[in-house]
């Protein structure tokens, strides 16, 4: 039996909708998400979907939190169970004191009948049957009933909800109408038939200021557009596809010649990832800003071309929206499992530049900066996001317009060569280890050079000489040092009197504030360094030097960032500890803090005993 709840819980809950994919619940969930958002309550939405198209279990989780914790929280308060196949398991996910909404017609096994939650049965199927004639539409529209139910139970603002509904279906008045009707049905049912027995409520607040709600792939795509990218070559793969697909949409909207309607860009859906990167390399060589986007298997396939880009020094931007696993793995789950792989990609001695956006703002910002970096450094630049960041919706401050013009890097045109009197492609004339380049088509007899992935000297002539090779490889190593000057520095945030350091990167940032609050509650003050790029900048070493124990928290099995830090800072290696989460769900704050606390305790024990 549920205890009568007096206390109310306002603007702090995790709601999960359990459905099947292909059932159109995404619109319903978006409307809920947007409503909370516009009520000024911090919110985050995460979609947990299967690697298929229709009919398999899918969960959408909305976290509403007045303190701004919008990372994943494993504990579930509020369940909308729409999928009978997973209901049994779903029921048991809810915390005591939580809420379960399900179809009143379902027979529920007594073993699953929890009496520590508020149980709201709703005759979804029946309501729908009674109110929707078109059988095809029924499945779609059922979802709107739960929107109404949830809205009524939680007290979502009516006007805001209706505006979110209208936005969702744009201008299609008829669609809006039929959906609105279903929402009303849901609300009405609650009002007439259900007594509120749970503590959860939402109330307008003002925490979201100027913020927007956007997924990381759209943000990265915008970064590409504002980074001046003109050539996009890609091959579809989850969870990356929506990135280039968004680029296409944005380019079509914002990069056409108004007079002729023609494209100031080229997008090619390549035959595979090898060809995709090949096209990017070709375009970059010819002087365009070019990018591709992929996930794990594509990264593996791109290995050989990445080595060419590194060795022949050709700009390219590669987005890796990481997913789980070696091989095909879990295509619809999130991970940070390519970090070490990407920065050492391809055979032989290579070290690549990689950026790790930690938020959708940074997807945008590093998105455009990646093109500047690639041109400036004349090398492939990776931008590593992940499924969680890329495909889920996140709140963000409005994106800032680039603070500097496009940096095309060191390119000489015919006039410049005339002035200089000579040109040698691979000579380090400026001490930054980056040579000047010319573009094909440059009208000067000294402009041409031959690009190759085999041995070449400063004049770009073929060579097999050992000293030439060493000279080139040493310069490339120095170029990596130049890169360390140019990549985004890490971001530090410190408690006063911090006892430990915490290092994370990418989407692992999102539950970090919550995690550190949890640590603080246990008396552990921490300093947090968010790494934003490889090569590491000086600040990374400085941070590690400050603490005896630093926890490197990441979402892979093998501690890939940890490995990189150990390689780069052997003398600090023993300070580094590891917290790793790799079940494919976004890491949550409790997991992080529990593991840090546990290791802190055992380290203290060691001190006492040892």
């Amino acid at each position, binding site marked *: 039996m549920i205890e009568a709840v007096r206390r109310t819980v306002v603007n702090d809950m995790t709601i999960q909708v359990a459905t099947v994919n292909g059932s159109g619940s995404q619109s319903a969930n978006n409307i809920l998400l947007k409503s909370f958002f*516009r009520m000024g309550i911090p919110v985050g939405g995460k979609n947990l979907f299967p690697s298929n198209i229709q009919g398999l279990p899918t969960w959408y989780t909305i976290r509403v939190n007045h303190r701004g914790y919008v990372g994943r929280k494993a504990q579930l308060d509020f369940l909308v169970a729409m999928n009978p196949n997973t209901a049994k398991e779903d029921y048991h996910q809810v915390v005591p004191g939580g809420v379960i909404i399900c179809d009143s017609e379902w027979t529920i096994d007594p073993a699953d009948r929890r009496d520590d939650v508020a149980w709201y049965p709703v005759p979804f199927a029946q309501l729908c049957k009674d109110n929707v004639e078109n059988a095809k539409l029924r499945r779609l529209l059922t979802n709107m009933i739960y929107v109404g139910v949830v809205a009524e139970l939680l007290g979502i603002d009516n006007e805001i909800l209706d505006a979110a509904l209208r936005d969702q279906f744009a201008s299609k008045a008829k669609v809006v109408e039929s959906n609105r009707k279903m929402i009303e049905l849901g609300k009405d049912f609650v009002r007439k038939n259900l007594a509120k027995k749970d503590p959860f409520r939402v109330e307008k607040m003002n925490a979201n200021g100027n913020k*927007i*709600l956007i997924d990381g792939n759209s943000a990265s795509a*915008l970064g590409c*557009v*504002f*980074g001046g990218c*003109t*050539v996009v070559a890609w091959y579809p793969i989850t969870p990356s596809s929506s990135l280039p697909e968004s680029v296409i949409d*944005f380019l079509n909207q*914002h*990069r056409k*010649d108004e007079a002729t309607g*023609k*494209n*100031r*860009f*080229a*997008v*090619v859906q*390549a*035959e*595979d990832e*090898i*060809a995709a990167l*090949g*096209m*990017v*390399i*070709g*375009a*970059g*060589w*010819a*002087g*365009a*800003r*070019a990018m591709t986007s992929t996930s794990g298997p594509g990264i593996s396939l791109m290995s*050989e*071309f990445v080595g060419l880009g590194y060795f022949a020094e050709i700009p390219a931007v590669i987005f890796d929206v990481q997913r789980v696993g070696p091989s095909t793995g879990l295509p619809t789950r999130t991970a940070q499992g390519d970090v070490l792989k990407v920065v050492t990609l391809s055979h032989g001695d290579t070290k690549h530049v990689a950026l790790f956006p930690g938020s959708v703002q940074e997807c945008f910002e590093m998105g455009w900066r990646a093109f500047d970096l690639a041109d400036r450094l004349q090398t492939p630049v990776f931008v590593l996001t992940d499924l969680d960041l890329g495909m889920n919706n996140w709140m963000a401050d409005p*994106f800032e*317009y*680039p603070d500097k*013009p*496009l940096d095309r890097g060191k390119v000489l045109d015919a006039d410049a060569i005339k002035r200089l009197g000579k040109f040698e492609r691979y000579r380090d004339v400026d001490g930054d280890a980056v040579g000047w380049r*010319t*573009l*094909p*088509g*440059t009208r*000067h*007899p000294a*402009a*041409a*050079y*031959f*690009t190759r*992935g085999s041995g070449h000297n400063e004049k770009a*002539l*073929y060579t097999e000489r050992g000293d030439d090779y060493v000279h080139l490889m040493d310069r490339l190593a120095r170029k990596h040092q130049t890169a360390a000057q140019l990549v985004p520095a890490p971001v530090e945030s410190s408690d006063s009197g911090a006892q430990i350091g915490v290092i994370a990167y990418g989407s692992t940032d999102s539950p970090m504030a919550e995690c550190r609050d949890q640590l603080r509650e246990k008396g552990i003050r921490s300093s947090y360094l968010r790494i934003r790029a490889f090569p590491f900048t000086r600040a990374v070493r400085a941070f590690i030097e400050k603490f005896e124990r630093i926890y490197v928290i990441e979402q892979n099995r093998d501690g890939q960032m940890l490995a990189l830090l150990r390689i780069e800072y052997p003398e600090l290696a023993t300070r580094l500890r590891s917290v790793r989460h790799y079940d494919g769900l976004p890491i949550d704050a409790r997991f992080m803090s529990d593991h840090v606390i546990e290791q802190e305790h055992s380290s203290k024990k060691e001190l006492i005993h040892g």
Partner: protein
Amino acid sequence: MAEVGTVNRLGFNRQEYTGSPSTLCNGCGHDSITNHIITALYEIGADPYTFAKMSGIGCSSKTPAYFLSKSHGFNAVHGRMPSVSTGAKLANHELTMLAVSGDGDTASIGIGQFCHLIRRNVRMIYVIENNGVYGLTKGQFSATADTGSKQKDGTINELETIDCCELAITLGCTFVARSFSGDKKQMVPLLKAAMSHDGTALLDVISPCVTFNDHEGSSKSYAHVRETDTPLHEIGYVPSYEETVADYAEGSETDIRFPDGSTIRLKKLDHDYNPKNKVEAVAMLEESRKKGILTTGLIFVDTARKDFNATLHMVDTPLIRLSDAELRPSRETLSRIVESYR
């Protein structure tokens, strides 16, 4: 054909179309092709500053270093030249893409990219220097080795041969020719025509490997190729800037006009051949295969299909020349976009 003086219409002498000295074996067919390319470029008065020389990996793929020293070149990775070329052409469509590949580079590791290049009809000249073996790795059979052909050590190729021309035609290639490295008279006009063609122009040129595939029993030896070479027609090329003179008897010739105003003139030999019919082309190649002869000439041409840049509806300005303002939308645009996510 233009009178060959010491300089061409651009004022360049032949020397200016050459590159660094070849490091291939003495007598390698590839070196002859290099020469024909230089001749064609010189005679036609090509502007070296508009060329991009593309290749993969192999002896053949080294040859772009041996011509057009004033042009940029790109020796990509093995079998992946087509994608690199596609990217470069998209970035700057004013580049004349002149690509050289080998039979291994194209028909073995590279066959996927080859097929998709053709499907896209990227405007470029694509020369396969076809010797039926991997020269650079010491003579293993490639996928174009003819069934029954013998390797130096006596091994016989029992696999089907891939006929790159037939494959290309099937995939809709818009310019498909076959030739022999030793046939300057045929190759030079074919190369010129290829440069005029608005799409992928494939030249599959049998180019004997003297070191690994020029022995008795090899179907790609000089001797065997000379013996079985059967031209479809005699070929003349009339550039757009020259007047066409009708000097053949009525009915004995076919003129094919390219969008740039130039013309290729095919003079009939012993039988009629229409290079505009896909099925006829396939039939001819099958027939040649059966007979064990090497039919050379312009096998198929289609001047109507759009090239890839056109298919992609691209602006006339090369992408690499767009201004910063054309590339980066305004501050206001960003605000508007951001607004739509509220």
